[in-house]
């Protein structure tokens, strides 16, 4: 049990200091509750590791990518006399890869399925893009919205790789 708690604490230490100050205690307590519910400590630690990787890789105002890369390099460099850092480094690298893939998957999830933007290349990916047009939902021969331009949802589906 103590080993499980140590594993989770180690994964929480991978988060940036700002995050740990804000959520650290709460995250540790949540992990304890989930473990007492029977959730494997390994999967909780893994989730936090992936979350930490995403947190570092997410651009924040005032934090440059080089700072993130420097922090990752620091983690991946084994300090003398500590073999565990090799394993931790490999885990972290895997978590980074997983975090990126998970982030990409998450951004392409059902929230995007609701995309009804206009078929104008990538314009619907920008924050200031216009309101989705319900008329876009109509296929040729299928109920065009009254008073709206007739369009094809297949066209709207293209070019959404934002």
């Amino acid at each position, binding site marked *: 049990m103590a080993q499980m708690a140590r594993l989770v604490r180690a994964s929480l230490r991978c988060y940036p200091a700002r995050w740990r100050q804000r*959520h650290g205690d709460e995250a540790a307590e949540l992990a304890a509750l989930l473990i007492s519910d029977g959730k494997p400590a390994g999967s909780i630690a893994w989730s936090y590791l992936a979350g930490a990787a995403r947190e570092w890789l997410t651009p924040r105002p005032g934090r440059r990518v080089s700072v993130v890369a420097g922090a990752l390099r620091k983690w991946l460099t084994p300090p003398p006399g500590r073999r565990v850092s090799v394993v931790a480094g490999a885990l972290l690298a895997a978590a980074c890869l997983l975090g990126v893939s*998970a982030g990409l998957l998450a951004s392409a999830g059902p929230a995007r399925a609701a995309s009804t933007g206009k078929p104008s290349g990538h314009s619907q990916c920008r924050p200031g893009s216009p309101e989705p047009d319900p008329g876009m939902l109509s296929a040729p021969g299928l109920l065009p919205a009254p008073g709206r331009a007739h369009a094809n949802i297949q066209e709207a589906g293209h070019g959404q790789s934002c």
Partner: protein
Amino acid sequence: MAVSRQDVLRRVGEASVLILISLAGGPKHGYALIQDIKELADVELGPGTLYGALDRLERLGLIEPLPAEDRRHPYRITAPGAAALRVHLDAVERVSAAGRLRLQLGGI
């Protein structure tokens, strides 16, 4: 206050939408959110995913933390968060209706 009709939740991911839906029922802290989302959507959010989504929603001003209870921070949905959720659910509903209609007309 003018309410934006733009679907800002289109790009935030499923976890964030589920969190907003859960918070629409009242303020909750992390553990309660995980339990509620598991019940309502049969989706088990990992704690790392949960905090990532909470951070993002808070930065977007769609949720806000309430004063801490012990070590737990409850969160509640804000007015812009509720408006954004409404717009998103409307959009999902329109796509869903169009999909059902096509299935029906296609005889599939």
